[in-house]
């Protein structure tokens, strides 16, 4: 009788989840850093404007 053994592919699932977290994390970090830099520049320019 043929027995179907499910392969252990959990490592590849973890790899996929890690890559997903890295890509989406990079996008979110890019937006957050962009806000921080833009707010800093805005404050500096308003300071110059007096």
């Amino acid at each position, binding site marked *: 009788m043929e027995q179907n053994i499910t392969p*252990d*592919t*959990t490592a*590849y699932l973890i790899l*996929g989840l890690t890559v997903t977290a890295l*890509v989406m994390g990079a996008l979110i970090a890019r937006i957050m850093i962009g806000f921080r830099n833009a707010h800093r520049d805005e404050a500096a320019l308003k300071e110059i404007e007096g």
Partner: protein
Amino acid sequence: MSAVTQAPLTPTAPGERTTPASAKRPLLLTILTIVTTILVVISLYMALAYAGQEADQGDVQRIFYIHVSAFAGAFIAFGIGVIGGIAYLVRRNPRWDRLAVSGIEVGFALALVNLFTGMAWARPIWNTWWTWDPRLTSAAIMVLTYAAYFMLRNGIENADTRRRFASVYGILAFSTVIITFVIIRIRPDTIHPAVIGASPQNAEGGFRLAPSMLATLSYSMVVWSVFIPWVLIWWRLRLENLNERVNALRAKALEE
């Protein structure tokens, strides 16, 4: 030549600090961000715990809930890029260009997720990280086409020319998204399985969706194609608007 936009500035008294109405974070965005975060956590729980394990592929099959949904999200986000591009060409209002670039940037991230999760799945199932299959090739072309969109934007200094060229490019680039979507349905030699609908005859790694799997996939599709693009594009658009204001302030400071 500076690539800044001469947006009208709200006059302020010397030393006065004002925050434009558009700079205040809308309550809806805050709520949407919290709700989306909760929905993502639930979708991960469903993918990792609720959906049953596929007998032939093991746990790696669970990556499909992200892989398929991320492509759906990219489709929507790139579609918003098209809407923004067309609206800019018709109205010539920079706000549409800002919407287009926001949509395309979010779509690009989701397309990368789709590509990389597909590679992670392919290694144990196809025994290779990559093969020049029609679907994989078209997906790679799609990602590279949109990567070139950002290079195009960075390479044009004049703001109006940049917006016009980027709008046309963003509209044309969407053809790669459509090709990627339909190619497994028109090319019989692809080995890429179709999760929804009948797989091509040469498909390898296809699987049947049990009710718990179908429920998880449907839920993930909604989260990744509605909530995630919506909230990220909104945030990205706000950043683009803020940068526009800063550029206008910078231009004003340089004039004085």
